């Protein structure tokens, strides 16, 4: 017992101050919100679109669809004139699928809106999720899970992951919705009592990611059930996920771009 107490003291208090205080330090090489600078782009080579593994880039309109993007730098490396860069902006969660498209010169996106008054009254202080991996590779799952560790301490916001969909207010889905999980996913969704929320985390759950077009997957979650929150990334940083969940609950409302 003495050893456990001593170890506890040595390990220290670790829960971060965010969102009241500053967010935790992010790696300088983090690939967050992409930015397209068309003045640097001659507009003829299309090397970026050819390099993109998921067809996330539309060279005509010079837009990047973060719902498809794997944040892999293949496009930025292919672009000789440096017109594409990934900034350190971790805030990527949105309420509408179309808001994931980053257009030429766009520096801010329309971030996720809070639930409406009625929903916020029900879920604003307690939100329980059943997490379903439907073909996920384990990376999104891991960074959904990590929010439960003491550094992030998701429980302090009233958010938790529960074992049964019947205990849940919504589902979090990761993976490109493998056809073999379609039935399991649908049954889980049906078992969640109304009103309920669906969240798609990661490029796979939003668009199918690198598996889009495969016969073995259904592709984006919103082809199966309506989605309330999209959190892009491959996988998204835990801070991106937390930021999205807190915006949904109306606990972060600053800085919304127009």
């Amino acid at each position, binding site marked *: 017992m003495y*050893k*456990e107490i001593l*170890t506890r003291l*040595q*390990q220290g208090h*670790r829960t971060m101050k965010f969102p009241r205080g500053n967010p935790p330090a992010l*790696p*300088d*090489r983090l*690939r967050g919100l992409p930015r397209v600078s068309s003045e640097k782009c001659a507009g003829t080579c299309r090397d970026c679109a*050819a390099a993109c*593994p*998921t067809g996330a880039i539309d060279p005509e309109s010079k837009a990047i669809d973060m719902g498809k993007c*794997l*944040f*892999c730098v*293949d496009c930025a490396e292919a672009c000789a004139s440096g017109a594409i860069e990934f900034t350190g902006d971790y805030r990527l969660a949105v309420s509408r699928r179309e808001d994931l498209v980053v257009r030429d010169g766009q520096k801010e996106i329309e971030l996720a809106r809070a639930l409406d008054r009625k929903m916020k009254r029900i879920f604003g202080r307690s939100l329980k999720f*059943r*997490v*379903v*991996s*439907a*073909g*996920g*590779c*384990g*990376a*999104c*799952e*891991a*960074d*959904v*899970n*990590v929010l*439960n*560790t*003491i*550094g992030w301490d998701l429980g302090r916001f009233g958010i938790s*992951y529960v*074992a049964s*969909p019947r205990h849940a207010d919504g589902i979090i889905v990761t993976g*490109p919705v*493998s*056809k*073999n*999980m379609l*039935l*399991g996913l649908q*049954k*889980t969704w049906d078992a969640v009592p109304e009103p309920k929320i669906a969240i798609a985390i990661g490029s*796979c759950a939003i668009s199918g990611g*690198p*598996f889009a077009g*495969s*016969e*073995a*997957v259904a592709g984006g979650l919103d082809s199966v059930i309506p989605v309330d929150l999209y959190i892009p990334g491959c*996988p998204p*940083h*835990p801070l991106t996920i937390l930021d999205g969940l807190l915006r949904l609950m109306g606990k972060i409302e600053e800085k919304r771009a127009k």
Partner: protein
Amino acid sequence: MKKTLNGQALSLSALVPLEFSAFSAAIIKEVDSGKRVCAYFGSPSAEKGSVDVFAVLADDSRNQLIVGRSTITGDSFPSITPRCPQVHLFEREIAEQFGLKAIGHPWFKPVRYARSWTGKDAWDRPQGEPIVPGVGDFYRVEGEQVHEVGVGPVHAGVIEPGHFRFQCYGEEVYHLEIALGYQHRGIEESLIGGPTARTLHYMETLSGDSTVGHATAYAQLVEALSRTQVPARAQWIRGVALELERLANHIGDLGALSGDVGFLPTASFCGRIRGEILNMTALLCGSRFGRAMVRPGGTGFDADAARVEALLRRLAINERDARNAINLLWDNQSVMARFEDTGPLTRDQAIELGVVGPAARATGLARDVRYAQPAGIFRFAQIPVSTHDSGDVFARAYVRWLEIQRSFAFIREQLCCIPSGPVLAPMKPLAADSLVVSLTEGWRGEICHVGITDERGAFSRYKVVDPSFHNWMALARVLRNQGISDFPICNKSFNLSYCGHDL
């Protein structure tokens, strides 16, 4: 059968096909004399109505690999599983992917519940009807008071889907059968005709927690096919990234095991420390899982002096915290009482099933690609193989702790002496009509990739064997005569990948 090495290209013309019965006999003979099956798979054949088959065996004592090739004609092949159990799932996979019946297979079921690539079906299921995963025969124990417990595909916790069916007598498990396939994403089929812009990304997501392991196996493979000399500096960085991946997952697993026996201090501490290790990987490449870290020809990112210094600083802190948190386990009687003698796997069972990774080393087998089939940095710098002999949950946990200490020491050593130079060499086109076997020791065990190119230098077949593919049967095996309440810690002590199995 032809001898080769890890990451060495072979011309297909040098690989003379054996007649199938001679091929089967050769596999049995090699396994009887101590080799193990790394991969055994089918490949579309140029001749209509037949399927090429390839087998890769490891001769760990001689540090070499043995590759065999044959052809199956017709709609079936004789199973050798009764004589050589470690091919049981490989034969089921060949049957499922190519619609061939494995005659005499003792438990002939689908692996992933997917349609074959050829239009034929090994189980004569009608074309139009959907294939429902987990539906079909399960092994059953009959008798008064024997009951069945079914769990999954969707089960408690943030975990991938799979179906587990227990045959129980009271609390005691007589038999566990595991049905997977829910995570099937059709990756092997998509890899045919590559490499394409997506290929590396398939590798990175085969099993997301083994991004560096799988990406390194792929990179080694295409580098061998294109005769690309990878800069030494890139090999060093890959080695550091691979060991960081091992550290993060092993530390996370020990925390999870601790949580499953209700010992929360270590569970809480390790959950956080695991994240700190992932952040070290992110310091190198921006991604906590090592995405875009490994590329064919080298690495996507360099480690400048300031970054190396920061890594060393964090390494020391995390090593101290991990030691402090994990050593609580071995001194705690209630933890040890739950770990010891739970879910034992004997060495003979591990050999028979072809088990790899920490689960094999926990039975005393010195089975480690870094040691027996080294490639990349491991040709220059060795990590001692960590083993234990009891084969139980404790051994699987303790081997992880030994490996954690080895990996910390290895990273510290290697970061102090990274060779100078570039980190990326330009890639050349892939050699045509060739075959390469590429192995890495992922944190779960041996990752085996086999690439075969056609006359244009494109993949006519790309086989992936995740360590989980070998090990799932071992988990089912250790549950026999265990309390059903010990399933979670047995499961966690293996911590196998569902998507790596389902591909």
